């Protein structure tokens, strides 16, 4: 690695103060520190040694935790395509074809998201003279996982640019943003280009093939919602009888849990989200409190709705909320974003709980938004400072009371 180091050392003066490319210092720094951790030593006074962690390692841990979802999503994209076009029957048949179809669809989205976001990051870093932040490693991976595989690439690019600029850079960059960047990108797509990210037609890639007779591309959430409006059968029955051309049990609880269903690329598999959650919790990178209380909140709200069940959707067994749509993915990867989440330990319980509850409320009671997790996370991002405010206030009151004893 010495030759690499030598190259960098040679180029360094160009970017340092007084050099020709001084303005691009932070772009150079990002590249340099990506390859080599710097030779900085600790200050004269204060901690003389430092913990081996740095932000890059923390962020890459989150990216690694998303890989199960990503790999599953890639395969499932191909699987759904062949299912819908009558090309396959078994889960593991045509493994190579499915993977290839998935890679062809998903990889460009990832590349576009990283490229578009990376360029914006770099431009801001150079103009605003702040270091390029590693948080984008995570955002760039999250955005592809929350859009359907059929999303046009230009929309991915536009949404990424919008989110990085409006949700992050205008607040001062990573660490200062109020909203989760990836969720903002998705919300942008949802409101700006609803045709490509909602309805029944976008979740399964068909390409130039014709779907088999009786195929419906609806997601479990819209099936459940329609069952509620319809009122002739329970949600579980509606799910069971839906889309039987793709196999009898496509929307069975276990199949939805594993994730062989249509949906956004990375969100379909609750199982893989839980694998990610296990990685995040074991490594201590994400707050287990948010994850646990998020799932609990959804279950709790589902149970409350059962009590007031005036239609089939309200009466749906609460655990179905866990496995339908993007709830699991959203709670594990979006709600736990340390910057936009609640920052006090007590606050994290409340924050997670509300995300779970709001998701179910939006899903069940709002006809316009079949999926609730996106808006629930964004809404609670906005409320997180308020939650923290009261938790901090409680701490202050506690110390004030202590004074009088």
């Amino acid at each position, binding site marked *: 690695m010495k030759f690499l180091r030598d190259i960098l050392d040679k180029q360094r003066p160009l970017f340092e103060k007084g050099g020709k490319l001084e303005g691009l210092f932070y772009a150079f720094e990002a590249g340099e520190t990506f390859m080599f951790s710097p030779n900085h030593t600790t200050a004269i006074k204060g901690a003389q040694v430092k913990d081996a962690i*740095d932000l890059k390692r923390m962020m890459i841990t989150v990216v690694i935790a998303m890989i199960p979802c990503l790999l599953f999503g890639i395969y499932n994209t191909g699987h759904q395509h062949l299912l819908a076009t009558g090309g396959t029957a078994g889960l593991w048949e045509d493994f190579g074809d499915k993977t290839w179809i998935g890679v062809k669809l998903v990889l460009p989205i990832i590349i576009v998201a990283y490229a578009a976001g990376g360029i914006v990051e770099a431009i801001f870093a150079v103009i605003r003279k702040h270091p390029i932040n590693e948080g984008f490693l995570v955002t760039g991976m999250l955005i592809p996982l929350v859009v359907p595989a059929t999303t046009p690439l230009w929309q991915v690019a536009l949404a990424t640019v919008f989110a990085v600029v409006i949700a992050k850079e205008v607040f001062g960059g990573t660490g200062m943003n109020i909203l989760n960047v990836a969720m903002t990108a998705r919300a942008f797509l949802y409101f700006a280009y609803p045709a490509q990210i909602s309805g029944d037609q976008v979740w399964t890639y068909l390409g130039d093939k014709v779907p088999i007779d009786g195929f419906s591309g609806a997601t479990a959430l819209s099936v459940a919602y329609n069952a509620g409006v319809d009122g002739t059968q329970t949600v579980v029955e509606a799910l069971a009888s839906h889309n039987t051309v793709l196999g009898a049990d496509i929307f069975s609880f276990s199949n939805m849990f594993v994730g062989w269903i249509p949906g956004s690329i990375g969100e379909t598999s609750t199982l893989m989200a839980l694998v990610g959650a296990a990685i995040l919790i074991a490594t201590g990178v994400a707050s287990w409190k948010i994850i646990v209380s998020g799932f609990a909140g959804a279950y709790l709200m589902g149970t409350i709705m059962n009590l007031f069940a005036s239609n089939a959707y309200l009466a749906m067994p609460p655990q179905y909320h866990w496995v339908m749509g993007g709830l699991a993915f959203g709670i594990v990867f979006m709600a736990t974003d340390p910057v936009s989440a609640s920052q006090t330990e007590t606050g994290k319980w409340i924050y997670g709980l509300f995300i779970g509850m709001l998701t179910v409320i939006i899903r069940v009671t709002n006809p316009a938004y079949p999926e609730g997790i996106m808006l629930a996370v964004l809404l609670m991002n906005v409320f997180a400072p308020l939650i923290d405010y009261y938790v901090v206030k409680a701490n202050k009151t506690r110390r004030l009371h202590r004074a009088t004893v």
Partner: protein
Amino acid sequence: MSKIVKLTKGFDINLVGKAKHELANFTAAQTFAIKPTDFIGMQRPKVLVNEGDTVKAGTPILIDKALDQVIYASPVSGEIVEIKRGDRRKLLEIIILADSNVSFENFAKVDLAGIERDALAIALAGSGIWPNIIQRPFGIVANPADTPKNIFVSAFDTHPLAPEFEFALKGQEKYIQVGIDALAKLTSGKVHLNVDGSKNTPAIFGNLKGAQVNKFSGPHPAGNVGVQIHHLAPINKGEIAWTLSPFAVVQIGKFLIEGVYDASKMIALTGSELTKAAYVKTYVGANVSSFVKGNLNSGHVRVISGNVLTGEKISCEGFVGFYANQITVIPEGDYYEFLAWALPTTRVSYHRALGLLSFLSPKKEHVMDTNARGEERAFVQTGVFESVTPMDILPVYLLKAIMAEDFDEMEELGIYEVIEEDLALCEFVDVSKHPVQELVRKGIELIQYS
């Protein structure tokens, strides 16, 4: 009533190079220094001696004009060889070349039973010992005119490679007891002496009268006096507590019994780069060169006055700080490392993020160097600060209040209860590599001088 407090939050950094329980026989240090920069909050230092003057141990050589009852005395007898100044004539060091046999200024012996509280304070303030008495809040040298609510002595040190007082103070029981008696007179409340609850109480602290002996157990910072105060009698706005180290208690005892300022002290020589890590008997402010030179495993090292969490870098010819009871010598870390952020490592980490494996072997002793392990980044809060701060304090919010210079918030969030060392672990574990201790001091100064 003595109190037993079990703490769970915190983190022990296990390093190679603990001092053996033996006295090393290095050549005695030749020169000693008083460094005004050691005394945080010293406003207008004034040197009372000139180069070439001869002094005895206990001769006043420095005062702070803002608190001029308190004498800063020479720790040894000898000749003032240099008064070192830096930029804008900032006073850096007063260096004394020591006699081979230390002779002492004779102070009047004090009859503890008969003396008034204020007279005792004045006598101690003039003895050279007083700067050891630290006032909370702010962590500055105490004002003899104040009467503290309580006085706290932490009788164990949980910092990395910290000296063990049981060894360093062996045989000083008599002085400790008299020291405690004197402290009891200075406060309107109690003298708290806090010992390590995870071990048997050392004999030197076991049979003390006049002090409340409390037991604290748990990882670092359980031994920090600030943490202990928080759990015993927290400081609120307008209140004052004093703290001092067991070494200072012994000095007070000696002063009262023998009428001398005896600044002798056991210093622990620690760290992975020392061939011989042991204790050495010397005086406050000793030059380290005779302990370090010829005692090094490698050439490229950092000598630290104090421990690796709160210490200060000094040179191989530098002087031990006034408050430091140890020096630590570790490798300098000024090297580049390829893909250090991604490759698995067993380097010490409180975290368990991908590839950080040190949590698997918590007892293992590590060699740590001074590499900063990453670059400064925006504050990303992950809850770790709270988990290494065993106090009902929200460090992140406190630090943000300091950054925002929000005085009300700082007060309400506990700025009066902390000094640098109490949040030093936050600086260590911080993912974003912020200078937390510097920030804490900034906040304290904002409040102190407001």
